[in-house]
């Protein structure tokens, strides 16, 4: 049983609301880790602060639940000090892209070998529904009672532009596909980003009249277009939809590998 091996029984029950998408995403992460055969003792899970970031505590690895927005900076220290470790960051859309936005682009730029899963529920769940950098324009939040004036990021485009070498998007509805994409992200030797679209029925769903968790999952199903299918569609046919699948894959020197080479050279071991 995956749950027995990879979850901390002592941390149950979890804090997530019924119908929350975060548990589905955590399960996809666990499946991907298992399939990739990562050594459980050599894998460190780092998270920030938010409902999504609580996932680290539920997982049976060395786990680091840090400060809001800073998971990637902590993870960078872990990975650099011991490059042998597999480092996975679990973060929310607010955590990664508002308070942590600067760390995010710089981690992409460095191409440090860390896999980052962004649990994107388009809202600040933990603090009861304020708008995030992923809340769509015009949507409602407790701090956008008249509609959100901000525009949201396309985090996959952002990651690609900033230098990430693997970028993918999936949804809680497409959980199996998500696990495959996370698997590829783990296999990439460099900085990988998977945007995992989640649902927060409690705050985002209710306020924006999106119905139940099932309705929100159906919305994900109906609005997601696979990258291969999207390639055959005209822009107007993609209006209001979003693309899922592997969106970017490239190769670039990995940060800790370069540093190891520097150490070897300076110590005359090369």
């Amino acid at each position, binding site marked *: 049983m995956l749950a027995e091996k990879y979850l*901390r029984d*002592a*941390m149950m029950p979890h804090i997530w609301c019924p119908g929350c998408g975060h548990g589905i995403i955590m399960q996809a992460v666990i499946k991907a880790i298992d399939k990739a055969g990562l050594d*459980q*003792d*050599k894998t*460190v899970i*780092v998270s920030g602060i938010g409902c999504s970031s609580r996932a*680290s*505590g539920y997982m*049976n*690895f*060395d*786990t*680091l*639940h*840090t*400060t809001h927005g*800073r998971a990637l*900076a*902590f*993870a*960078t*220290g*872990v*990975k*650099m*000090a*011991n490059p*042998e*470790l597999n480092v996975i960051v679990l973060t929310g859309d607010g955590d990664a892209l508002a308070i942590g936005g*600067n*760390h995010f682009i*710089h981690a992409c730029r460095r191409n440090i070998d860390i896999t980052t899963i962004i649990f994107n529920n388009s809202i600040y769940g933990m603090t009861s529904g304020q708008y995030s950098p992923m809340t769509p324009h015009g949507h409602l939040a407790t701090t956008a009672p008249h509609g959100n004036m901000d525009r949201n990021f396309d985090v996959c485009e952002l990651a690609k532009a900033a230098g990430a070498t693997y970028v993918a998007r999936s949804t809680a509805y497409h959980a199996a596909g998500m696990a495959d994409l996370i698997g590829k992200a783990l296999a990439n030797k460099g900085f990988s980003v998977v945007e995992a679209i989640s649902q927060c029925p409690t705050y985002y769903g209710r306020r924006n009249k999106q119905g139940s968790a099932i309705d929100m999952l159906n919305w994900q199903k109906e609005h997601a277009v696979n990258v291969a299918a999207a390639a055959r569609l005209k822009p107007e046919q993609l209006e209001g939809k979003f693309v899922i699948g592997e969106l970017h894959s490239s190769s670039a020197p990995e940060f800790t590998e370069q*540093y190891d080479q*520097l*150490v070897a050279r*300076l*110590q005359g071991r090369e």
Partner: protein
Amino acid sequence: MSPTVKLLQGNEACVEGALAAGLKFFAGYPITPSTEIAEHLAERLPRVGGRFIQMEDEIASMAAVVGASLTGAKAMTATSGPGFSLKQENLGFATFTEVPCVVVNVMRGGPSTGLPTSPAQSDVMQARWGTHGDHPIIAIYPSSVPETYELTIKAFNFAEKYRTPVILLMDEVIGHMRERIELPDEPPIPIIDRAKPTVPKSEYLPFDESQGDVPPLANFGEGYRFHITGLTHDQRGFPTSAPDKTAVLLDRLHNKIYNSLDDILLWETIDMEDAEIGIFAYGATARSATRAVRLAREQGVKAGLIRPITIWPFPDQLIAQYAKQLKALVVAEMNLGQLVNEVERAAQGQVPIKRVLQANGELILPETILQAALEVK
């Protein structure tokens, strides 16, 4: 072998001390007057198999240091006022999660961007209370280049021994001034490494108070599979809001420092045996104060110096002891009144206290301190 004699800046001596202590990871962000520490470590660390990284800001630097330390690496960052402000949240995280590390603050005049290249002792209260919540902290304060070397090693030793961040406060003049220093081949004091767990991996509890006030810290990546969180946590490191568990944790956090004051409190006194006028000063100001003591003695005034080296925890006992002996106590510091309030608290009204406070970016001259001593004699 004989020691190497060098003419080094305080910032360079800090680097030498850190390397002698076994530094393996540095993350920082450039800021005057601390930048030389980062520059020298960028050059030196990879040569000894360590890692240097310039992060995107000071928040990230502090975070990376904590992450690195959790893998077992001795880790440090260095900054000045504005950057020290940015580090506070993650510094608090390190105190609460008990992750050893050293934070160097080479102070400049403040507030805000202030006087980037001028000396000031403006962050001593921030070092104590800059991060939110009840927490103990160790802060030590050199007053010369050779002492910077030695205290940097001690900072790492305290960090490892007590599983805590340690702040090394430096004056801009100490950081930038060159002084003669003897660098021994071997560290001049024994190097302390953090205690490692001795229990079977499956039984390891990272915050187990039954292991003493400083429970051993395992390394990430060695199979202990433990959790670290900035939420209030139980012995296992798992979040809790139970009042009894909260109290146990906060008590132990304080006890581990306050029950070891004999080890942690460092100070120096000069001519205090028969002193009637005490001069309390630290860092670079203590050098002016030492001169003022000489000048006063030449004039027949029985003056003496009290120089705390550990400023946090504050040496209450030291002050209380001399307060009874002295006719007056002069407190000199390069700020508008920070540690003097601690001195007054510790003296408990037993001795009149004269303040010599200056925050104009200039060192306090010996004559200024002397004059104050003569006024109260």
